[in-house]
């Protein structure tokens, strides 16, 4: 299915959970935060929350900043 991942079109396995999505893109869940459709997903819910077709998904992390 197609999702909008960090502002870009992205092909994700249908019914993938947040965790699954992170795995497909090779990101360990430890240090990222995820927003799906404008709502933050608590880390404990990565395995539960399923991503739907067309969802807007943001995956962020800490970087240097002031």
């Amino acid at each position, binding site marked *: 299915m197609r999702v909008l991942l960090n502002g870009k079109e992205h092909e994700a396995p249908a019914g993938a959970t947040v965790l699954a999505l992170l795995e497909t893109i090779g990101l360990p869940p430890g240090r990222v935060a995820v927003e799906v459709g404008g709502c933050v997903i608590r880390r404990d819910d990565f395995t539960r929350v399923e991503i739907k077709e067309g969802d807007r998904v943001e995956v962020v992390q800490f970087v240097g*900043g002031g």
Partner: protein
Amino acid sequence: MKSDTLTIAGRSYPSRLIVGTGKYASLPLMKQAIEASGASLVTVAVRRVDLKKGDGESILDYLDTRAVTLLPNTAGCYTADEAVRTARLAREAGLSDLIKLEVIGDEKTLFPDNEGLLQATRILVKEGFTVLPYTNDDIVVAKRLRDAGAAAVMPLAAPIGSGLGLQNAATLRLILEEIRDIPVIVDAGVGTASDAAIVMETGADGVLMNTGIAGAKDPVAMARAMRLAVEAGRLAALAGRIPKKPYATASSPGDGTLR
């Protein structure tokens, strides 16, 4: 001076200097500079993971979170909504309620949008965040941020990254006289050690800086200079300086000289 700590939302931090982590040539250099600064609060930004790069090295590998507390910011947000969403993500990523709140209103000057800043502050305070808003030297806004539940107000000394130092001591003094129940931390514009000392002497509870250190030719040396300057300025504020006088007054005895 052991006991003279910076207290934000009931938690004490040994250093009154807060430093950023941006603009360093390398993460190891950043690590050294932060250690030299002695800062106990360190700001980080929240950014989308670069999917092409994937799992690169993380800034967290270079921050000893037992020694320093992370202070995520919402830098780059131009609306209350963006800032609120960024803050929520930051909380998930950092597992802490601290947020340096920025809602920018002008790209060239990075001046705050105080209306959006107030909105975002109200929302985030309701959600249990400890909100440290970056603002300009506007006493009316400072009072509203305080009344909205901000844990501190953080007026700028000068535009972010400008290195101009404290441009308006008069307005800062007015804010310091009015805002007494929460810390006033001067955020942005400090360029060199004396700038930091002046800010602290004026009565600020702390200083936040990034470019002033990271942009110096020798960031580690400047970090140490800033650490000493903040401590010096704070001590001087507490020590009670001599009044300024137009004339001279001898420091050696007036009589008993040879004639």
